[in-house]
């Protein structure tokens, strides 16, 4: 477990630095790119925990789709891609305080309950097979509902976005 702990620390430090850069940088495109590092760090943490499926999904969905969507959004809606002085809120104290308080609360609750919890040493990691088995057995209803949801979202998005 020692090696995992060291890597956890390194990745966590990188993620915190990148997360701070996301909110402090004056360039929106840079903010999106710093976000890639944060999200990649999350994927790395999942891999460290042996959750390979969640880790790969994290990369595919967040880095592959969400951040690319951000970049397209910026590209299609903004003329200037460079630094922008107005990108940061003038009154940063209030949201920052709320953020710090919420972080403190959630960190306290998590550490308080799982302080001594350990991953099972002999437990095998969750495999892709196990995930797919449960999707098509116990979670078949939410799975089917998700497919309806995606179709509805697609149809609605086309109607909302298309030119009249």
């Amino acid at each position: 477990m020692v090696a995992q702990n060291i890597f956890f620390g390194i990745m966590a430090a990188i993620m915190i630095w990148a997360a701070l850069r996301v909110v402090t940088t004056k360039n929106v495109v840079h903010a999106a790119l710093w976000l890639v590092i944060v999200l990649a760090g999350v994927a790395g943490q999942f891999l460290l925990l042996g959750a390979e499926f969640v880790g790969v999904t994290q990369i595919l969905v967040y880095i592959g789709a969400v951040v690319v969507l951000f970049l397209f959004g910026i590209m299609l809606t903004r003329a200037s891609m460079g630094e922008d002085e107005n990108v940061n809120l003038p009154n940063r104290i209030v949201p920052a305080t709320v953020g710090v308080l919420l972080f403190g609360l959630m960190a306290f609750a998590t550490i308080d309950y799982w302080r001594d919890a350990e991953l099972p040493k002999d437990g095998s990691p969750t495999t892709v097979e196990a995930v797919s088995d449960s999707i098509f057995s116990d979670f078949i209803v939410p799975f089917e509902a998700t497919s309806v949801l995606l179709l509805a979202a697609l149809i609605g998005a086309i109607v909302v976005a298309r030119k009249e």
Partner: protein
Amino acid sequence: MLATVLAEVAPFVRPHIDWHAVAPELTLLAVGAILTLIDIVWLERGRKLTSSLAGFGLLLPLIPIVTLAVSDSDTRVMFDGAYVIDDYSLVLKAMFLLTGYVVVLLSTNYIGEGDYWENEYYGLLVSSILGMVVMASSRDLISIFVALELLSIPAYMLATWRKRDVRSNEAGLKYYLMGVFASAIMLYGMSLVYGVAGSTLLTEINAALSEGGSSEAVVTLGIVFVVVGFAFKVSAFPFHTWSPDTYEGAPTPVTAFLAVGSKAAGFVALMSLVVVGFLGRDDVFGPLFWVLAAGSMTFGNVMALRQKNIIRLMAYSGVAQAGFMLAPLAVAGTGGTSADTSISAILTYLLIYAAMNLGAFAVIISVARKTETAELESYNGLFTTAPVLAVFMTLFLASLAGIPPLGGWFAKFSVFTALTNADTGAGYALAVVAAINAVVAFGYYGRLALRMWVEEPYLGDKAPIKVPVALGFALVLTAVITVAFGVYPPVATHFTDVTLVAGV
């Protein structure tokens, strides 16, 4: 290569699926698919059919619901209790489908005449209702979350359906942003609850949370976050800020749908979560719901008194009504029969609220067809120009205010019964708050009624209002239900006297 890999994997066990039990969902799914296909195959020629097809299509799943209700086996459980079809869920499914049917009646002329994307509108409406129907049976965190998204995401887009109107765009965007924010908070809470319980099944969560003992911060935080996420959905104070703007900007039939359908779905999720999942942690959710209920009733009523626009008035009165519906949950965990009476009270309230609120929106849509405004002033002298509409509106307003012998009276009565039945100080205190608010609500409902009966007609225009057939039918249907439930409450309690106990 692949064969050896597959051989090592544990054999896949086919899940047991009770096809009769999921027949309502499958029928609704087929209706949605047919609606979409008609649009693809027939293009413009299908337009005339769509609204009637959607209307009848929403009534079709009632057939399997009735056969399920009269069948011998009382409760059908699938997937270890993740999906349960009992009397509670059947009543709710029927309510959601009828709500959808009335919304289609309200939409027929509005959407048909306004050059909207008609087919897609009904397709999204059906999929949103499918989400509600799934929600009624879900007893599992993942099913509840997916059902919530399935009912919300089409609703976000329906709110922005008046694409050329900037207020409708604002409505959809605001609803969407607040909705995903709430979803994120709720998911975080769910992950904490799952982390403690080690299962997504509500029954197992209840077992784990109850034995967990005293006061882990993480359990409190998890429950609070989950409840807050749904408080957005039911527009409870202080998470209601999206509702007046969204209600005002969205197409009015969609507003009616949001005010009744998706609000009811949020309550269904809250009831299942609290009574099946969190019942052992009354110390956490009791005070939380007390504050939410008292705050929503008081704030909603105070704000409603100051509104000049009927849709905003209905939005704030909806916040107040949500407070009444939240109130029984505050005492649901006090032991004895309080969980059952609370569930019955909320169900009764939901059924009656759906009828009277949809009726009020039917009148609003009818009046706006002529006046093309939603200002309260446009209701001046409605009795002179449209006496029948004025009578209907007075009936619905009186019911919303809770005047006997209309349905709203019995809805409020069952909430008071549930609160006093718990026999706790908090329950009685909340009953007092509710009683004061019931009186305050007379203020704005009564003033609106007075406008219609006493004032001179709006702009001196005495031309009568023509009500299309579909709207007229919706008016009659909702009025009959509103009156029937109030005059003879056993009609309502026959359906709502159900139990939803932990350990199904």
